[in-house]
């Protein structure tokens, strides 16, 4: 698909759960591809760079330290990460700076039901983070289908409906428009 024709799909199923003094975003996404294929997209640096918000310095499919570099236009900031659990093709868990990301893959028909749990500092961030992952996972789905639109990361997300998604997710979580 040509990049300019890409439009975000409808909002996914999400929830926000307290996690001690922090919050966890739960984000569910059905992908049209088998768990093995999704696993490779989640762990292989060459695939990650085509859809993820960060670049990985190594394959994330094995426990231990890694560096995940956040890319935003011309700037790139490296953040330490630790892969805590890697059980292909079902469970991947790693820290990224202060955040914790846990990916659970379940076969669903011929595809995969992906559950992302992203633990972060403040409740108010949840809709923004959900909007970011929505765009990333849309891009990943296109990539896996052999119909890439190219990575959408950093401030560029705003050109592809990030703010509208953020507002839609805030409304889903809180049952009201975010700036009412």
């Amino acid at each position, binding site marked *: 698909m040509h990049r300019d024709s890409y439009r975000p799909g409808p909002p996914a199923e999400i929830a926000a759960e307290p996690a001690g003094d922090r919050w966890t975003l739960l984000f569910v996404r059905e992908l049209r591809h088998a768990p093995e294929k999704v696993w490779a997209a989640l762990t292989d640096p060459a695939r990650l760079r085509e859809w993820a*918000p960060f670049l990985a310095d190594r394959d994330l499919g094995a426990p231990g330290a890694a560096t995940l570099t956040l890319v935003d236009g011309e700037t790139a*900031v490296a*953040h330490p990460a630790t892969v805590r659990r890697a059980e292909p093709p079902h469970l991947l868990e790693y820290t990224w700076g202060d955040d914790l990301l846990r990916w659970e893959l379940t076969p669903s028909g011929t595809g995969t039901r992906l559950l992302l749990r992203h633990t972060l*500092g*403040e409740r*108010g*961030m949840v809709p923004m983070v959900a909007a970011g992952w929505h765009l990333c996972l849309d891009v990943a789905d296109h990539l896996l289908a052999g119909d890439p639109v190219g990575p959408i990361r*950093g*401030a560029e*997300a705003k050109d592809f409906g990030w703010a509208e998604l953020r507002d839609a997710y805030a409304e889903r979580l809180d049952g009201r428009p975010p700036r009412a």
Partner: protein
Amino acid sequence: MSVDAFAVLAEPTRRRILDALRRSECSVGELVDALGMSQPAVSKHLKVLRETGFVTCRTAAQHRIYRVDPRAFRAVDGWLAPYREMWAAHLDALERHLDKE
């Protein structure tokens, strides 16, 4: 004063964030809207600014609201003080020169 403070301020994005916070305290979402930057980038830079004492935050209705903490800037200002005196000394010299004219 530690070298770290200059490393923190050397990053242009962080200076843009500080410029915005100098005008008024902001949440992450407000900075994202105002600066045309991505949320992950704003969050990561705010973390650095918070850990090095340039900003503090308070929590209000689910959001963290960030503001500039002048204490870290006083350290930078203190480091600059002898250089300002150097400048003042040159001005004194100029004045003495003009007195003789």
